[in-house]
């Protein structure tokens, strides 16, 4: 268990380091690297979750949260680019752990797309939200997620990362012919959307993360589920 966490942690770290210091490398071979990355990081957890004997209560709780994450944008339809889905995923992941965070995040993406129509971005969205949940869950018990300040910083960063990863699908279609400049341009064109996303994450996390984690923990106890934080 700890071993797996370690592997995932190292994988995530390497990816982000590569993204930060050798963006060219990632951009040039991103197809290969992303696929490897997805397989290396997410597959073991997904397979483990799929093999684990989950009780009906655990299944239902995950389904409820995934559905809430995707339904939660409805009331916000009137406020452009504010949607609490990312917040719901982070809060659930902190309460229920990395595996659950991953499943909730990826499922929320799949469900939203099933309702709105699948697009070539579906897999990227699954990966983005899945990772956001996974990482939040991974650090749930460390100072990183226990302190509100860090939670807010995390929410802010993932707001941007989410947009960037989502933009990758366009690069993906160009089969590596597009260069880094285009990618950056793509990201600047979506800057305001990403900023709104990042800020709304911070806003929701600031006001609601405490209450939500408390509510989820209470139900965790009431349901008698997710005992070991897995």
């Amino acid at each position, binding site marked *: 268990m700890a071993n797996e966490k370690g592997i995932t942690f190292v994988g995530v770290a390497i990816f982000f380091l590569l993204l930060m210091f050798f963006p060219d490398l990632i951009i040039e071979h991103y197809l290969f690297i992303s696929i490897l990355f997805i397989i290396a990081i997410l597959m073991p957890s*997904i397979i483990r*979750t*799929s*093999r*684990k*004997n989950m*009780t*009906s*209560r655990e*299944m*239902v*709780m*995950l*389904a*409820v949260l*995934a*559905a*809430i994450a*995707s*339904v*939660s944008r*409805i*009331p*916000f339809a*009137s*406020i452009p680019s*504010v949607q*609490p889905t990312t*917040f719901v995923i982070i809060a659930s992941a902190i309460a229920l752990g990395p595996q659950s965070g991953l*499943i909730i995040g990826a*499922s929320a993406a*799949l*469900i939203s797309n*099933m*309702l709105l*129509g*699948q*697009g*070539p971005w579906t897999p990227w969205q699954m990966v983005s939200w899945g990772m956001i949940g996974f990482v939040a869950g991974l650090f749930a018990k460390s100072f990183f997620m226990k302190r509100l300040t860090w939670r807010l910083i995390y929410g802010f960063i993932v707001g941007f990362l989410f947009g960037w990863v989502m933009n990758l699908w*366009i690069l993906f*279609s*160009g*089969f590596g*012919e*597009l*260069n880094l400049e*285009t990618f950056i*341009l793509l990201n600047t*064109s979506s800057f305001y959307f990403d900023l709104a996303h990042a800020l*709304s994450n911070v*806003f*929701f996390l600031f*006001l*609601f993360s405490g209450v*939500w984690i408390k*509510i*989820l923990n209470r*139900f965790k106890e*009431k*349901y008698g589920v997710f005992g070991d934080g897995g």
Partner: protein
Amino acid sequence: MPRGFRSFHPFVLMLYYIAVIAGLMINQHPFFLLAAFICLVFVNLILDKGVELNKWKYMILFLSLFVLVLTPIFNQQGNIVLWTVFSREIYLEAIIQGFMIACTLSGILALFTTFSIVITSDKFLYMFSKVFPKWALILMLALRFVPLFRKRLSDIQDVQEMKGVSMKDGKLREKAQNGMLFIQILLTYSLEEAIQTADSMSARGYGLQKRSNYESYAWKLRDSYVLIYIIAFSLLIIIGWQLHESVLMLAPTLESIALEGNSWFYLIGWISLISLPIWTEGKEVMKWSFYQRDL
């Protein structure tokens, strides 16, 4: 239609999509890509008269323009300079490349508009459950919850509006906060109620043993034929790609854009693969119109 394109086994349909996406990415030649896009528009037309595609037209237009304009500005590799704008050279190669990327993107989007029509959520979940049975079940549960939660959410909004808590007016901050309070009520309420859902699952024997799976999609002989068809043409495309017959070389020197000899053969193969839905579906349309005329 029970016998059209949509009636094939989900795995066959999925393979079609994978093959066409892969084809769109490897056949980097303007004619191949343009032909593909036109074919895919016809596929859309025959599947739902273009209703879905119509919803996405602005996205397709926007992305195409974006790429058509920006690629020549940023791509500074090539031999043939057409113009110089603001001390930047615009290369013919870059324009061609921009065109190809635009076609690829439009093609992929046009393909995905048919995806939701052909691979409905039932079929998608069917395939998903073959690979990740537990996760698929969570998805099914969540999909069942979505309409229920929408209803609850609108009830919550009504009840709270009567109390004076609403998203209709006020500052952005207040609106967002109230909206989140609604979601919070939805969360607490739904988690409370969902215990009963879990009980109802257990009461019907969930978790006692390995679940069996109802085969809603039986494999028929025609699925095998179509499978062979897709595999054969996919192989053809891969060969064409490997022989550079379906790829336009931009560097070191720009190839002639015109198609020659064998390239035509591979183009026909490529079009045959993409237009699979057109004749499987078109055959049914024809059959019906003949049938009705006979009456």
